[in-house]
């Protein structure tokens, strides 16, 4: 029972988030498709959360810590550069007269 509950909790979250993503992305103006790609790319770096867990666990093996380290570095690069580049792009979008 608890297992089925657990799995369906996660499936509910997935289904709702997918519907929501669909509604949100459909409304993004084509003008902003490039910044959108780079923003979602930055947001995807949230996998850093998993990388931190793997690296910081008290019983992490050296192999695990090494792989985790690499993962944290990679995710951080994506997050930092992704957000900054998105903002750099968006700063350039101006209306006439702004």
């Amino acid at each position, binding site marked *: 029972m608890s297992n089925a509950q*657990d799995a369906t909790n996660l499936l509910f979250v997935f289904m709702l988030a997918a519907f*929501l993503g669909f509604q949100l992305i459909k409304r993004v103006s*084509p003008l902003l498709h490039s910044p959108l790609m780079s923003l*979602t790319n930055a*947001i995807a770096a949230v996998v850093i959360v998993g990388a931190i867990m793997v690296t910081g666990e008290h019983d992490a093996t050296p192999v695990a810590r090494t792989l985790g380290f*690499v993962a944290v570095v990679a995710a951080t690069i994506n997050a930092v550069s992704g957000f900054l580049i998105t903002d750099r792009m968006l700063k350039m979008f101006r209306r006439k007269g702004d």
Partner: protein
Amino acid sequence: MTVLQSSNAVLVQAAYLVASGLFVLALMWMSSPKTARRGVRAGELGMLIAVCGTLLHSGVVQYDLIFVAILLGTLIGVPMAFLMPMTAIPQRTAISHAFGAMAVGLIGAVEYGKLAPTQGAGSFTVWALMFEILLGLLTCTASVVAFAKLQEIMPTRPIMFKGQQVLNLAVFLGALACAGVMIASPANTTPFPFFVALALVFGVLLVLPIGGADMPTVIALLNSYAGLAASAMGFALGNKLLIVVGALDGTSGFILAMVMCKAMNRSFTNVLFGGFGQAAPAGSGGGEERAHRSYTAEEAAPMLEMASSVVIVPGYGMAVSQAQHRVAELYEHLEECGVEVKFAIHPVAGRMPGHMNVLLAEADVPYDKLVELEDINPELPQTDVVLVIGANDTVNPAARDDPSSAIAGMPIIEADRAKQVMIVKRSMNAGFAGIDNPIYYKDNAGMLFGDAKKVAEHLVKELQELAA
């Protein structure tokens, strides 16, 4: 201790809830240029909260490596963000997908090593882990190949060989078989290295037969895969934040890929397996030598100045020659002369969705001057001059008129309907689709041969002289 741990768990969960909400808001605010930067702030805040929340997690006790890694990542990421030229955005997206997907794959591998011995046959967690590792690794190598093709480290034409599809299928099924064995008996880790190798190889095989100019669609699809991999990680770890972000990302990449396919009037299958662009555009201008007119900048400038309305159609050529700043100057000069200037943006002009918008915004062209295909087409018959700068397929009337054309049915910017068309490009060669473009031979059309940047510079100089 238990109370401390449980209040701790509440805090972590609350952080993840808030972070998820912020990521949703980030995408919501991306819908308009007025709120988009607020969206970036929301995303940054969400990331910060997610990281801080995780650091508070009672399972995380060794902080040294983590801080070093975050510092290192920041030190690499910040200069990367500031030094990256806007024209390299497609490549950057590809390589950062590779990084991200690699992280997902590595975490999956570590989790598998730790959890596998404790799981029963057919456990939900192992299913999720296999999915995560497969998608993560194949996205990683596929993104590397996509990057290499975009950066032209690798040949951009589709690489096809006999038995390719059979090989691809065999590799894919092999990877699935390994996963199946590990799901059936999680304690048996023997197939794991094979699984990893097959997943990595499959990623490469997947992208080889796809031409360089189809890479934007592929990148959007890989974005979608990376999202699904993150969701799978969320399922494996029971982490809802990861599931939400993965689903948002997955749909985003999928929708962008769909938009591109629609704008090219092609199907997913055609993009992924079609080997489009395979027949090298072997000087398609050579064939029958139909007559075309050609202008010099000296001739063209007065025609532009005397027009009352000009529409500029930028394309991949403007990006390649980095001509956007010169084109923006041209736009300003024309506006000063009292000419009404607009830009017509085709959804797949350039090499990624929204490519032209970013480049022109970089050159300070106001975004209300950038008009979408459906909105500009009805105005073109009343337009005096259309100036095509390094665009080709996106203005090819064959797509509209010739049902046997390779790009038949692709929506185009109907530049040929304007009173005058001038086309800036270096030769009579074909564009990405490798087919001839009848617009060059129309009575109202004339070529302006040369590198886009040089020609734009030249036009500006002429306009200045005319004004003086």
